[in-house]
C-alpha cells in the first residue's frame, strides 16, 4: 500500500465479523480490502473463548484445530452455589466449544484471503472519507504514513472500541449500564471440570457473572464481567475476580499464566447499522448477546449477511443506505428478536437479589427442559415459586 488506492469493499478490522464479511463479499465477486491495525490477527486475545456450535454450518465455518475442548454442557451456580445443569440434551447444539480464539480468528482471515480478499496488517483507519454526506472510504495509517482508501462500501468491523460508526455519525455510544467491564486470567493447576462451562451468578459479579471455561485438564479461563454502572471504585472488576478466586480453594491454588480484559456491550440492539456507503457489523454494531456476553456467533452470522449485501451493492452500483437496508433487515430477521428478549431478561437479572437467584436455581433442580429458553426456565420456576416469577410476567 503506501499510497492512495481504491477497492470495492473496505473492511476495517479483521476480527471474526470483519473476516466473515470480507470472505462472503469476495466469494460473491467483490474486490475486498480488509485492514487490521494489529500486527497479528487474533492476538492478543480478548475473549473467554466459549462458544456454541449450532451456527457454524450456517456461515460456512468448518471445525478445525482451533477447538480446545468440546464441552457437554453448562452449569449455572446460584450465589449459594446450587447448580443448574444445562446439557446437550436440552440445549441442543447451543452448548459447544472452548476454542483457541487467536487460531479461530486467523482461520477466518485465511478463509477470507482464500476467497480472494486482500488482508493488510498494521494498518489502522484514522478517519472516514465523506462526500455529499456519503461515506466513500477511510483515511488509514500505515508505518507512520497516512493515505486514503476509497471504496463505495466501507464496513466498520472494528470491535468494541468502534470508532467507525461514531465517525460516520451513527450513535453507538453506550450508557454505563449497557457495558460490562471484563477481566480474565488463564489459570493452570485448577480444579475445573472439562465437561462444563461454568457460570457463577449474583453479588460475586454485579450485573454480570464469573466464568470458568476449561481449556484442558487443570487449565481454564477464569474471568468476570461487571456492569459498569455498578462499579464504585477503581479496579473493582479485578477486586471482584480476585475475591471470587480467593474463596474457591480449587482456584486459589491455581497459577495465573495470562491476563486479558475488555469491554462487552450488554445493550439493546442499535436502531441503525447502515448509512450511505457504510455498514457496521459485530461488536462495532453492538451485536453481543446482552444476556450471555457472547459475540462471536452473532458477529459471524451478521458478517455473512453483510458481505453478501456488500457484493450485491457493488454489482448494482448502488451503495445508498436504501440499498443497504437489505443488510439491516437481514441481520434483524436473524438475530434481533433474541437480542431484544435477552436484553430484557438481562435487565431483570441485574435487579434481582441473591436470595431470588437461589430460589430460581433451586426450582430448576431435577427439572427436565426440552429446550432451553428464558420462557421455559420461567415456566419451571413458576411452578415452585410463583411469587418469584411475578416480576417476570412479560416473559411468560
Amino acid at each position, binding site marked *: 500500500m503506501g499510497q492512495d488506492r481504491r477497492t470495492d469493499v473496505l473492511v476495517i478490522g479483521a476480527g471474526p465479523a470483519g473476516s466473515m464479511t470480507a470472505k462472503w463479499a469476495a466469494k460473491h465477486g467483490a474486490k475486498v480490502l480488509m485492514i487490521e*491495525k*494489529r*500486527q497479528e490477527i487474533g492476538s*492478543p486475545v*480478548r475473549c473467554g473463548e466459549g462458544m456454541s456450535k449450532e451456527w457454524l454450518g450456517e456461515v460456512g465455518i468448518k471445525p478445525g484445530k482451533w477447538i480446545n475442548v468440546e464441552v457437554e454442557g453448562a452449569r449455572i451456580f446460584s450465589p449459594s452455589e446450587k447448580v443448574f445443569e444445562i446439557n446437550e440434551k436440552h440445549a441442543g447444539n447451543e452448548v459447544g466449544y472452548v476454542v483457541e480464539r487467536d487460531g479461530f480468528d486467523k482461520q477466518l482471515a485465511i478463509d477470507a484471503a482464500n476467497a480472494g480478499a486482500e488482508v493488510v496488517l498494521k494498518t*489502522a483507519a484514522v478517519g472516514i472519507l465523506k462526500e455529499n454526506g456519503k461515506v466513500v472510504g477511510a483515511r488509514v495509517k500505515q508505518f507512520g504514513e497516512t493515505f486514503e482508501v476509497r471504496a463505495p462500501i466501507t464496513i466498520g468491523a472494528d*470491535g*468494541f*472500541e*468502534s*470508532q467507525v460508526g*461514531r465517525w460516520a455519525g451513527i450513535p453507538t*455510544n*453506550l450508557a*454505563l449500564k449497557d*457495558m460490562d*467491564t*471484563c*477481566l480474565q486470567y488463564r489459570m493452570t493447576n485448577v480444579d475445573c471440570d472439562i465437561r462444563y462451562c461454568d457460570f457463577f451468578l449474583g453479588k460475586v459479579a454485579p450485573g454480570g457473572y464469573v466464568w470458568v471455561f476449561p481449556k484442558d485438564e487443570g487449565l481454564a479461563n477464569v474471568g468476570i464481567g461487571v456492569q*459498569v454502572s455498578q*462499579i464504585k471504585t*477503581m*479496579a*473493582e*472488576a*479485578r477486586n471482584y475476580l480476585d475475591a471470587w478466586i480467593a474463596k474457591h480453594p480449587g482456584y486459589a491454588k491455581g497459577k495465573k499464566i495470562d*491476563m*486479558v*480484559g*475488555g*469491554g462487552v*456491550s450488554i445493550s439493546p440492539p442499535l436502531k441503525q447499522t447502515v448509512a450511505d456507503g457504510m455498514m457496521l457489523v459485530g461488536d462495532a454494531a453492538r451485536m453481543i448477546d446482552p444476556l450471555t456476553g457472547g459475540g462471536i456467533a452473532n458477529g459471524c452470522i451478521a458478517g455473512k449477511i453483510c458481505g453478501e449485501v456488500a457484493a450485491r451493492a457493488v454489482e448494482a452500483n448502488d451503495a445508498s443506505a436504501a440499498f443497504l437496508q437489505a443488510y439491516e433487515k437481514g441481520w434483524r430477521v436473524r438475530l434481533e428478536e433474541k437480542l431484544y428478549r435477552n436484553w430484557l431478561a438481562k435487565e431483570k437479572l441485574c435487579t434481582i437479589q441473591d436470595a431470588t437467584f437461589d430460589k430460581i436455581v433451586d426450582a430448576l433442580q431435577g427439572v427436565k427442559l426440552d429446550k432451553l429458553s428464558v420462557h421455559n426456565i420461567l415456566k419451571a420456576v413458576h411452578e415452585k415459586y410463583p411469587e418469584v416469577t411475578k416480576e417476570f410476567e412479560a416473559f411468560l
Partner: protein
Amino acid sequence: MPSKKSLHIESSGQLCIYCGACVGICPLNCIYLDETRITFDEKICTRCEICVKACPVGAIEIG
C-alpha cells in the same frame, strides 16, 4: 477559567493491559489505543470519570 482535574492513564504496562474498555465507553471518543500505546485528548476530555470505572484494572486515575 478553572483548571481541569488531571487525568492519568498508567500506560507503561505496569497496570494497563491495553484492553480497549475505556476506548469503547468514552462518550467523547477521545481515548486512542494503538497496540501498546494509549493516549487521550487532553482538550476534548471532560474528566467525566466514566473511563475510570470502565477500566478493569484501575489504570486510569483522576485527581
